[in-house]
């Protein structure tokens, strides 16, 4: 079978490769943000916040390249789905980068406050799970694997459960002072940012399904069953124990 339009397809492949690269870069920064909170790493926080501007710039550049392909090459069928999905995925990645920067801003605001050991453990877990979700979505994208994409939603259920537990623990360990209250609010927000990162990963995986099958995400699906933490083994449990 003779391949026509090689240059155009190379352009598409390159955009996809660069989107995956950007996603990987953001995924890598997620557990780092958790570490920055845990280590009170102000220098690291500064670095990650500054790096977010670069991620935003690359995201805009990728979007421009998608628009150019749409305008000049009039992609159809699988190619069209890919370009449309990549534009959405780039937006998810960009937003994820913002979440990571926000977590680092929380690290600055809670600087100098000792965290309860239970909270520390949960921050670490949220960082790892949010990253695992992003990596699974990236894998699904790279391999155009619908089954892997479908698994991302379940992984997000676990992250949501950890975040709920984090909020519960915050309430239990709260001492009621005004100073303590401010730290608690900041930490609650950080946990929410981790939880949002998981949602962005799920959205990315949904777009992978669209690329492969042409079916748009169905938001009318029944709510997923609540995940009890005891039901799901922590992915890193074996190694960290």
């Amino acid at each position, binding site marked *: *079978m003779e391949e026509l339009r090689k240059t155009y397809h190379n352009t598409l492949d390159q955009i996809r490769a660069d989107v995956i690269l950007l996603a990987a870069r953001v995924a890598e920064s997620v557990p780092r943000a958790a570490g920055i909170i845990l280590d009170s790493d102000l220098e690291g926080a500064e670095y990650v916040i500054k790096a977010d501007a670069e991620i935003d710039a690359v995201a805009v550049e990728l979007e421009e390249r998608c628009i150019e392909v749409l305008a000049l090459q009039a992609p159809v*069928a699988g190619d069209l789905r890919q370009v449309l999905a990549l534009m959405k995925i780039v937006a998810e990645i960009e937003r994820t980068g913002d979440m990571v920067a926000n977590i680092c801003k929380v690290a600055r605001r809670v600087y100098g406050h000792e965290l309860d050991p239970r909270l520390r453990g949960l921050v670490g877990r949220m960082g790892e799970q949010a990253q695992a979700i992003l990596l699974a979505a990236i894998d699904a994208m790279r391999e155009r694997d619908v089954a892997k994409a479908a698994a991302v939603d379940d992984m997000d259920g676990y992250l949501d459960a950890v975040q709920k537990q984090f909020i519960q623990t915050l309430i239990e360990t709260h001492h009621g002072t005004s100073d303590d209250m401010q730290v608690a609010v900041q930490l609650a927000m950080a946990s929410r940012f981790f939880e949002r990162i998981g949602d962005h990963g799920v959205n990315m995986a949904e777009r992978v399904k669209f690329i492969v099958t042409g*079916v748009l995400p169905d938001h009318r699906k029944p709510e997923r069953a609540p995940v009890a933490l005891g039901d799901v083994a922590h992915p890193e449990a074996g190694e960290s124990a």
Partner: protein
Amino acid sequence: MISKVLPNSSDTYQEPTTMSDNPNQSAGTPGATDVVFRTSDLAVYYGEFRAVRDVAIDVHRKEITAFIGPSGCGKSTVLRCFNRMNDLIPSARVEGKVDFHGVDLYDPAVNAVEVRRRIGMVFQKPNPFPKSIYDNVAYGPRLGGLKKKADLDAVVEKALRGAALWDEVKDRLKASGLGLSGGQQQRLCIARAIAIEPEVLLMDEPCSALDPIATARVEELMQEIKDQYTIVIVTHNMQQAARVSDRVAFFTTEVNTESDRRTGVLVEYDLTKKMFSAPSDERTEAYVTGRFG
């Protein structure tokens, strides 16, 4: 010869069925509820050579159906079956069935001239008669017995308006049709085809000899007249199929075991939006995305 009477579309009106994934069922568009042509197991031979095989397509009323595919895939051959144009090629032979409102077009009792009156055709190259613009359009109605000048004037004006050509030629109706530009000539041929009020217009690459502006005019014209006619168009231009049609049939060629000539085969037939956003068959995907030519 006994001429079998072709039914009118209103005689065979079928109530719309419910929406389904079956592309051979109606898209649910208003006025597009019944089947005009239904082919089954259609194959066309030129002598011993089988040019196209296993074509099963329902063409729906007042829709634009486009045939796309690489050269030699049989799309024009199938189109020509719809008004028995293949009869004019001595070696051509049709197997299977082509039903027009439930009547087999190839039934010996069916009058081919009547078929071609009901099912008009526009060709790749504009082919006006070497006559005046007026006489080109009046030719068919005159053959049909229309004689009064006032009646003919009315028919000519209606057809030229229908083909979006009236304003450009109304002051020079006696001028030769051959003096028009290519795009105007093609619209004159469309006017000539619709002057006899056919039910169906078959268009065999009607824009391939036209510049982009003339092409856009013909495409726009197709949209304007599709509420009155059922249109089947063969096109090499995939974007044209995407722009104008409601449904698309993709044909390709396959290698014969017995000879080195290729036989055309219908790969996929579905709503245009489906064919260009998420086709079901890998071969369609490869063709529309330009991975194979």
